[in-house]
C-alpha cells in the first residue's frame, strides 16, 4: 500500500487561499518594515540625478497591463524624478498597451510638475521592430519616427515641438531608461549604448533581474531597479531628496511580498518534512 504523509496530499487550492489571504492582510494592515536600498537601485538613482538637465531623456516602455503591478510604479518613480529635475522626456514603446498606459501616467503627473506636451515631453509612440528602430535612431531620430504620436506633428516642426530642439540622434540624448517586462535591453546595448554618451538604466520585472547583473558589472548598464521592490527602494530615495512627501502604494506593496515569501519558506519546510516523514512511513511499513 502506497501511504504518504498528510502534508503530501494537501490540495493546492488551500495554498492558493492562504496566499490570497496573506496578500490581502499585507495590503490592508500596515506592517512597518525596514527597507535597505540595494546598490543597483542607488546606481540607477544616481544616473538619473546626474543626467544633464539640458538634454532630452528617453523613457522607453515595454510592458503591458499584465505586469503593470511591477512596471507601473517603476515608470512612475522615474517620471517623478525626471520631472522634479525638469528634464525633457521622450516616451517610446515596444508594446502596444504600454504606449497608452505610460502616456496616461505622464498625463496624470504632468499638471503636478507643470509639464506641457510638446514643450517638456513628447510621445514618439509604439514601434513593433526594435532593431531597425534603434539603428535608425542612432542615425536620425526625426527621420526614424517622423511624427509624434498624439496629433501627428512632424518632429522637425520645432515651433510646435520645442522639446525636440537640438535632438538629431542618440548622441544628443542625456539619458536612456527602459521599463520592461521583456529582454529588449540587449537591443539597446547592441545598437545604441556605446555610440552615445547617455547612461542606460533599466527597470525589469523581478524575474528578469538575475540576467541583468552582468551588464551592470560590465558597465553597459548604469543601474537597475527590479520589480516593485526596486520601485519601493527608489521611492524611498525620492522621499530622502524631497521629491515625494510620503511613501505611496509601492512601499505598501512590500509587506504582502514579504508575507508571501514567508509562506513560501514555511511550505518548503513543510514539504521537506512531509518527504522525510513519508520515507519513514515507507520504511516502517
Amino acid at each position, binding site marked *: 500500500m502506497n501511504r504518504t504523509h498528510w502534508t503530501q496530499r*494537501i490540495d*493546492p487550492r488551500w*495554498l*492558493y487561499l492562504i*496566499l490570497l489571504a496573506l*496578500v490581502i492582510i499585507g495590503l490592508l494592515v500596515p506592517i512597518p*518594515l*525596514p*527597507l*535597505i536600498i*540595494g*546598490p543597483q537601485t542607488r546606481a540607477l538613482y544616481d544616473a538619473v540625478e546626474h543626467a544633464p538637465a539640458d538634454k532630452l531623456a528617453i523613457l522607453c516602455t515595454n510592458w*503591458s*497591463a*499584465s*505586469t*503593470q*503591478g511591477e512596471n507601473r510604479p517603476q515608470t512612475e518613480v522615474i517620471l517623478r524624478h525626471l520631472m522634479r529635475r525638469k528634464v525633457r522626456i521622450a516616451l517610446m514603446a515596444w508594446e502596444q*498597451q504600454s504606449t*497608452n498606459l505610460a502616456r496616461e501616467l505622464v498625463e496624470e503627473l504632468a499638471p503636478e510638475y507643470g509639464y506641457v506636451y510638446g514643450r517638456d515631453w513628447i510621445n514618439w509612440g509604439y514601434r*513593433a*521592430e526594435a*532593431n*531597425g528602430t534603434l*539603428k*535608425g535612431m*542612432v*542615425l536620425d531620430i526625426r527621420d*526614424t519616427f517622423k511624427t509624434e504620436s498624439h496629433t501627428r506633428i512632424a518632429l522637425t516642426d520645432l515651433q510646435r515641438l520645442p522639446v525636440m530642439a537640438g535632438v538629431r540622434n542618440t548622441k544628443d540624448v542625456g539619458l536612456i531608461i527602459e521599463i520592461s517586462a521583456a529582454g529588449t535591453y540587449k537591443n539597446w546595448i547592441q545598437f545604441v549604448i556605446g*555610440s552615445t554618451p547617455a547612461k542606460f538604466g533599466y527597470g525589469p520585472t523581478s524575474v528578469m*533581474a*538575475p*540576467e541583468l*547583473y*552582468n551588464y*551592470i*558589472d560590465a558597465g553597459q548598464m548604469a543601474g537597475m531597479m527590479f520589480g516593485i*521592490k526596486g520601485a519601493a527602494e527608489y521611492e524611498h530615495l525620492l522621499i530622502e531628496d524631497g521629491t515625494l512627501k510620503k511613501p505611496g502604494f509601492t512601499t505598501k506593496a*512590500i509587506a504582502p*511580498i*514579504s508575507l*508571501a*515569501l*514567508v*509562506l*513560501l*519558506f514555511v*511550505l*518548503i519546510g*513543510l*514539504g*521537506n518534512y512531509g*518527504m522525510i516523514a513519508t520515507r519513514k512511513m515507507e520504511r516502517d511499513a
Partner: protein
Amino acid sequence: MTLKSLLSKLFPPLHGPALYAALAGAAVLCVFLFFALHALPPRARKVAIGAATFLAGLFYALEWFWPADSAGNNPMTFAVPTVGNVANVLTAFTLGLGVMSLIRIHGNNVIRQRASWENSLVLLLGMVTMAVSGLFFDKSMFFRSLFRDVLNSFDAAMFATLAFYIISAAYRAFRIKSVEATLMMAAALIVMLGMIPLGQFLTSSLPANGSFTSIFRLDNISNWMLTNLNGAAQRAINFGLGIGALAIALRVWLSLERGAFFESTPE
C-alpha cells in the same frame, strides 16, 4: 555613384495612379513567382530556396563586415530599415492566415456543436466585437472600456496566477533530495531572505560596509551571490547559446542541413 543614389534613381517615389499600378504589378509578380516556384521540380526548388536564403542572409553579413565611416554607416546601412520593413510586411500578411485558422477551428466547433462549443462561440464573438470596435469606433467609450476594463484586467489576472503557481510548484518540487538540491535550496533561501525587508531585518544590526562583519549581512551575501555566482553562470550559458545560434544560423544560411525543412521526400 553610391548604391543609395542608384536605387533612388531606379525606383523613384511614386504617387497617385502610378503607385497603385506599381502595387498591382508587384502583387501580380508575387502570384507569378508563387506558381513558378510550385511548378519547379523539387531539386530545382531547393536550389532556388537555398539561393534566396543565401542572398537574404548575405545582406546582413555584408552590412556588418563592410567597414563603417565615423558616423557608423557604410554604403549598405541605409537599406537596413527597408529590409527590416520587408520582413515586417511578410510577417503581417501571415496574421490573416492565423485568423483563418481560428475561424476554421472554432467555426467548426460551433457548427458541429462539439464539446464546449460555447467557448468557441464566445471566442468568435469576442474577436469580431474587438476587431469591429477597434477598426471603426476606436474613439468610443465602448472600445476604451473593452481595452482598459476587459483586456487589461484579464492580462493582469493571468499574470497574477503565477504567484499561486509558484507557491504550489515550490511546495511540490523544492525538496532536499541530493547534495545539489540542498545547495540550490540554501542559495535560494539566502537570496530570498536578502531581498525582503523581513530577511534584511535579521542582520540589519551589522554594519552595511567597511567592516569584516558586514560580509555576513544577508543583503550583502545575496547581492554577492547574484553578481558573482549567478553572473558567472549566466555568462557561461549565454556564451553557449550565442555559439549555438551562430551554428544554426550558418546551417540555414549556407543550406548545410540535409533532410531538414523544405525537403519532404520520404526517406
